[in-house]
């Protein structure tokens, strides 16, 4: 087992945006790396267009939830959730935030995932674009906050998942790449 990796990530968005899917991919990446993993998800009523929040903890944890100011990283699929869930982030954590050119997000690294999704004509892929962007953002973070997995790791998870569904796989990889290579504005 890799030496004492301990990482806590918060993924936040709205119902229907695919928050759970992103959480799932990251958790599977942890498993592929033989790391213990814990996630906590929103189900039921809130999934109908409400606020969806998931917690992901990689390493030696017993509780599935993250306390305020403890998250190493934040993935925000909808800008308005920054105000809601920004408090989870620790002072030197990183945040990958979906925001367009007009919206200024004070903390974190913005990426216009909505526009990129239109550009690659895959409007539902905002989640993967933000994930791609988060992988890039975390690469640049201070060494203590680097993500437990890399761009390549997530690509391999996607390949395992969509092995036989070639079209889905291509579209997903494309979205992930669009986020990973998005220029920071």
């Amino acid at each position, binding site marked *: 087992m890799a030496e004492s990796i301990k990482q806590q990530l918060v993924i936040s968005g709205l119902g*229907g945006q695919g928050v759970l899917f992103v959480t799932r991919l990251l958790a599977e990446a942890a498993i592929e790396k033989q790391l213990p993993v814990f996630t906590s998800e929103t189900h039921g*009523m809130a999934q109908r*267009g409400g*606020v969806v929040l998931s917690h992901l903890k990689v390493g030696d944890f017993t509780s599935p939830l993250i306390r305020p100011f403890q998250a190493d990283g934040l993935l925000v699929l909808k800008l*308005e959730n920054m105000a809601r869930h920004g408090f989870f982030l620790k002072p030197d954590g990183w945040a990958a935030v979906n925001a367009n050119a007009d919206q200024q997000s004070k903390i974190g690294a913005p990426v216009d995932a909505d526009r990129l999704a239109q550009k690659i004509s895959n409007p539902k892929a905002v989640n993967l674009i933000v994930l791609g962007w988060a992988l890039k953002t975390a690469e640049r973070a201070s060494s203590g906050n680097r993500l437990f997995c890399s761009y390549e790791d997530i690509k391999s998870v996607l390949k395992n998942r969509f092995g036989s569904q070639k079209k889905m796989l291509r579209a997903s990889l494309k979205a992930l790449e669009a986020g990973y290579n998005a220029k920071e504005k």
Partner: protein
Amino acid sequence: MTERRLLLGNEAIARGLVENGCAMATSYPGTPASEILAAVAFFQKQNRISMHTQWAVNEKIAFEIAYAGCQTGLRTAVSMKQVGLNVASDPLMSAAYMGVNGGFVVISADDPGPHSSQTEQDSRMMAMMAKIPVLDPDSPEQAREMIGLAYEISEKYKTPVMLRPTTRVCHSRQDIDLRAIPENNREVNFEKNPARWAATPKFRLQLHKELEGKLAAIARYRASAPVRLNPGAKGKKVILSSGVAAAHTREIMKALKLWSKIPLYQIRQPFPLHREFVTRLLKNYDDILVIEETTGVIEMQLADRYHVKGKLSQTVSRVGELSPEKVEEIICGFAGLEFRQFEPPAVPGRRPTLCAGCPHRASFFAIKKAAPRGIYTSDIGCYTLGLNLGAVDTVLCMGAAISQASGFYHAYKNEKKRPDVVATIGDSTFFHAGVPALIDAVVQKNKFVLVILDNRTTAMTGSQPTPASGIGAGGEPLNAVDIESLVKGCGVKFCKLGNPYKVKEFTALVKEAVAYSRKHGPAVVISRYPCVIDMLRKGETGQYIPVEVADTCDGCGYCIQHFECPALIYHDDEDRKYVTIDPLLCIGCGVCLEVCPKGSFVIKKN
């Protein structure tokens, strides 16, 4: 050959069931328990296990079927959410007296918060009332383990055993090593014993005595006894914790560097609490803190008002979920450490809303047109969200839409002005608890309209089949029960079918029903159109009408207020107010064409 797999808590519970030879699993869907049965059916298919899995019409029926299974010597299980256990409480209380033959596990998932429920009730209290043992897992992994323990206790002491996971266990995912699934070669053998299985009140007293004996023995059973998690710690203060609160407590005590200072016990079986442990505890410690969800079940059994702190002493909040930050605050207070209070920002919430294109929205719009000043009783399901549209006035519990409509009718029937009453209920909920209420309304000639929102699935909990679907938990073909015939069979004379997407016709139909009900008694309209999410899941497509908003839109906001399709975006610009349609969300149901009073929604040219 262990394989590590990421499992949802509910899948881990299902895995525990099949790994322990469960031969019959039944359920009625309800968040946070819904995925348990689906996962059992999945493992069954994947491993070709010979067993019975099914969605039952309601929790009571699910319970009784699985209970009969254990009477024949098989290991069986029933799963439901906590309010479902209310529905199944009748057989639960009685089954506790009669006991079991094969192992029987009752899984009742609680929802502190509540995140997706009407109440925060504690199923462990139901276990106490029924006098059966209850296990309280802290994680998916432990939930899986505890299924084995539950069967062991159940068969050793011949009693049903409850497993009480909470939302944070059900809906966490954890990496878990899969174990082998044993060959199921138990003999099915119902041994007749009417003195027990059909006991009359006289024998029930005897059974009750036996039950007390069982409980006393279970309170001495080693395998489920409290576990000391940090044997090194010494002191006169001690913390007891159970369920997911114990998982938070462990992590927080380490973070606060209290791990070697305050002894911590995890209670795995909150009821009956081990007697010897209680005696030792009260003797050895001056200060005892109990952290548990949601009621003070462990605390109550400590029966000491001076040294025990918890829910009863109001040290631990009696309502709401025990989030890790709350647990931290409680432990800091107990250990005399400083705690930095933190209030998360109050950002105006996004209220949940029906999906874009949801047929319920169209039904509600029509109902409000047809009975504008009516009383609208409703029920449990996605359509509860009709309250955003002002088309839902009451939500009590499963099936109550119909009985409450009856109650409102009786309350008003001698008044000069009688409001129209329109009840809405989903197809699955109608089967669950609506049918007896409808029969009652027919007998009493109650004057109201019932709209059955028939979207052909149990949508809210993730699209489980209904009795009208004709398919089983594993997708196998079954018989389908036709709602229309059922309604007519209940004695309803006015029962008509409509498509809510055809707003005008459908509104006229509801009006007709209202007029009929005023004179004659209950009238039923079946509003039939499939759930759009379910269609999406199955790869089906409904009608697609490309809609856009014409320049005539003056931003009056009528559609936003009365229709609230999430695909409609309101623009409040300086020079102009108007509405547009979000192409990402719009599914082209075309219903909004009928909604705007000015006719500003139009079909896109070409």
